């Protein structure tokens, strides 16, 4: 199979993720702080950032533990939040070069932001995903470590409007896709499913259920 000439390099992926830097840094710091408060201990917090590398699931697990929840509740909420990565991983399956071990390692850099950035040209690009993922990974793990020692000195990331900034990020990345009618219909259905399920189901379930809207794609065949 002839490889297409590389249109972007790892460097472009790192550069694409640079504007997002405050997000992982502040959330990483606050995960470290929360994990300490939850009694997880610094090493467990850092290991979790290095192996799970998915902010929302880690926050869910830590907050369940902090509120005295069971191991099962912490695991289930985090796993449900991360179930979306199964679909995202299938979407980018064919862009990873090399052998199985290399694909395994590089696939761990799939995270919402790197995945979304890598598809912004309309087709998924490996250098963007891996370049952006590497930068985000380093920031996430190191700021978690700093957070576990920095304690409560840090302000609330929501004071800076970072939660809204992430919504805007996802919207801006969705926009190019939403020019096609099939995508508009599927996205609309996904939005409705999510809205209906947020009050009814634990965090993570609405995202997973919304993925069912992709099945609208079967109609065209």
């Amino acid at each position: 199979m002839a490889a297409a000439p590389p249109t972007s390099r790892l460097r472009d992926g790192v550069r694409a993720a640079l504007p997002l830097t405050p997000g992982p840094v502040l959330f990483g710091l606050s995960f470290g702080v929360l994990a300490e408060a939850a009694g997880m201990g610094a090493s467990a917090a850092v290991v979790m950032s290095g192996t799970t590398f998915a902010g929302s699931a880690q926050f869910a697990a830590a907050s369940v533990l902090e509120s005295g929840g069971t191991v099962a509740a912490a695991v289930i909420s985090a796993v449900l939040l991360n179930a979306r990565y199964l679909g995202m991983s299938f979407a980018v399956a064919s862009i990873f070069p090399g052998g199985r071990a290399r694909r395994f390692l590089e696939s761990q850099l799939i995270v919402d932001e790197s995945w979304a950035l890598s598809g912004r040209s309309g087709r998924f690009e490996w250098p963007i995903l891996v370049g952006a993922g590497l930068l985000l990974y380093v920031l996430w793990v190191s700021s978690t470590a700093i957070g576990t020692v920095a304690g409560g000195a840090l302000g609330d990331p929501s004071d800076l409007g970072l939660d809204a900034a992430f919504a805007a990020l996802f919207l801006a990345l969705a926009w190019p896709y939403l020019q096609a009618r099939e995508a508009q219909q599927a996205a609309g259905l996904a939005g409705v499913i999510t809205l209906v399920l947020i009050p009814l189901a634990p965090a993570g379930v609405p995202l997973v259920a919304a993925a069912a809207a992709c099945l609208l794609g079967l109609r065209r065949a």
Partner: protein
Amino acid sequence: MRDVWIVVAVVGAVTLFFKAAGPVFLGRRQLPPRLEPVVALIAPVMLTALVVTQTVGGDEEIVLDARVPGVAVAAVAIWRGASVVPAMLIAAVVTALLRTLF
């Protein structure tokens, strides 16, 4: 303490599997043609769901707060052609301002 490490290990292992599933097990094989339109919809569908949870999601409830006007202003900017970074800045500034003022 042991409980914490069980959570870290299980969540970590399952997440590793989720992320690796496509690239490792599906690899460069092509999906059946019938599934291609389904996979093409994953990006707009998941991104839209993330927009919704990130804008109005709370702890098992819909929360309408300063995020909503922030994201709404950013949405208008995106519609008028704003790219990712300006859109994020607009949402953050509007939301942070409203939280400071009220």
